[in-house]
């Protein structure tokens, strides 16, 4: 009797769990899917459906402001990814392998840019560039905010993310392989090139993809370090949304969505353990 009761309770709780899971997946995906569908809407007005058409994609790509913002976004993302991947990987290696002066201080600060809310990091950098420009103006050319300041800011937060991701990979690293190389009289550089680097390469690639994604996604820090001459695509979208939703924004957003989903799939493929494909 009580057995039947618990079985019933178990079944209903299982149904509840499943219903909740469906609800969560719907919650996560429905808004995105609706946005994508409406980006193909032919209508001038966002809320009136008038049939399928790629019209707004054409309009978006014909908008010079959008194209120039996209260009800035790509320059910033690629530059900051390359620089922060090199610097972040070096920081991770040094923290994992070596004891040196200032190691503890570096270990503590490297996590801070991840923890601090975007808006505080943004205003910190704004104040920093204002002061730096005051100093530089005394000796030389007048500088303004623009592509360079956005890139410098993106590197500042991306170093930390790359360092954390690469360090996680180094943590599961089999040190005996490096020792074997050394025992076979490989020089330290050769050991690094031929043993260490190939083994941590997936971690570095994952870190680089994360950096690229974060750089392409960032709104707040870019908004505060962008100048009148150069804004990124997310900053353009952000300032346009505040003036109202347009079908063109739907199209741009869908393109950004497609770019980030491509990056996720790439990074998930990279992180898949190699052992499954012998």
């Amino acid at each position, binding site marked *: 009797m009580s057995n039947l009761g618990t079985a019933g309770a178990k079944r209903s709780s299982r149904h509840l769990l499943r219903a909740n899971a469906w609800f969560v997946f719907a919650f996560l995906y429905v808004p995105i899917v*609706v946005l994508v569908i409406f980006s193909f809407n032919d209508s001038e007005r966002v809320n009136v459906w008038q049939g399928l058409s790629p019209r707004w994609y054409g309009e978006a790509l014909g908008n010079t402001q959008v194209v120039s913002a996209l260009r800035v976004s790509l320059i910033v993302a690629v530059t900051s990814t390359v620089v922060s991947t090199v610097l972040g990987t070096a920081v991770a290696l040094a923290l994992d392998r070596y004891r040196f002066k200032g190691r503890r201080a570096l270990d503590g600060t490297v996590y801070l840019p991840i923890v601090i809310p975007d808006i505080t990091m943004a*205003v910190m950098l704004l104040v920093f560039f204002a002061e730096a420009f005051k100093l530089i103006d005394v000796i030389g050319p007048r500088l303004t905010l623009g592509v360079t300041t956005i890139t410098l800011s993106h590197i500042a937060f991306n170093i930390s993310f790359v360092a954390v991701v690469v360090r996680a990979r180094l943590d599961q690293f089999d040190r005996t392989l490096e020792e074997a190389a050394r025992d076979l009289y490989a020089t330290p550089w050769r050991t690094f090139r031929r043993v260490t680097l190939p083994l941590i390469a997936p971690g570095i690639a994952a870190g680089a993809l994360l950096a690229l994604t974060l750089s392409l996604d960032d709104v707040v820090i870019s908004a505060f370090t962008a100048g009148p001459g150069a804004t990124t695509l997310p900053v353009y979208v952000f300032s346009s949304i505040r003036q109202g939703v347009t079908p063109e924004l739907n199209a741009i957003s869908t393109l950004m969505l497609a770019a980030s989903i491509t990056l996720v799939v790439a990074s998930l493929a990279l992180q898949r353990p190699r052992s499954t494909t012998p």
Partner: protein
Amino acid sequence: MPPLRRAKPAAAQPATSPEPTAPAPMTPAEIAAQRRKRRTGALIASPGALYLLIFFMVPLGLITVYSFATRTSTGRTSLSGWNLNSYERIADDVIVGIIARSAWLAFLTTVLCLVVAYPFAYYLATRPPRLRARLLVLVMIPFWTNGLVRIFAIRFLLGSNGPASALSEAMGFGTFRILFTPTAVVLGMVYGFLTFMVLPLYVALERMDWRLVEAARDLYASGSKAFWRVTVPLTRSGIVAGCVLVFVPSFGSYVVPEILGGAKTLLIGSYVARQFQAARNWPLGAALSVLVIVAMLVAVAINQRNSANAERTPAGMP
């Protein structure tokens, strides 16, 4: 812990901290090698460390200095004559109200995320491995997807005469307007940060020793009793981590309230931004930023102590 895994203990240990089992005195060659190794480490770390020093630590120092500065009548910042005026202004009713509202909405967001994400993570963790891996990919995609676009999607959905409103009208519920209300902001933050809650909970549940739950059931604990007395305490570290990961960005959120909120939902993130934009009161903005940073560091410290405790406590020993 690391010392056990260090394959080359003698060379890798710092010279300054003598181990209890100190090796035999080092030969000059060994000392030189060790010094070289320390120099290599510093050399490898230095470009990144220098970058963080210039573009992170200096800005952090500057904003702290600015928080003690004075705003001149023209909206410029005068660094001469440090004072606590900006910190005193934080006690103003308006600002206290903004901080309280930010904390309250972040708290609501955290609770909602926990209530939805716990059963969800539980469901994920109890699926067969293959299905679990696939479902996890479905969870990761929104996690990595452009946050701005996702919030824009919510804005579009909830907009006046938007799809949600049209649907509710078609179903006979009439139009609804929640855009530009605190409800919309909380909804947007839950949407934006839900995965931050799901992932640590999933990790905690997946790592949990389910035999302990079975043991509780064998000892005639009811299902709910086993859940509350065994499962929940064992996944405490995931719960705390998830709550910190949701509360911190919600509290400092800027994009979500700017897009989904209205005049009545001014939150601290937007208020800080305004001080650096139209209001031109950099010292006040700086003081509020310092306050937010300190609050975040406290939250992170709580989380770290919690996860350190979780590691030290053997499974099943609360």
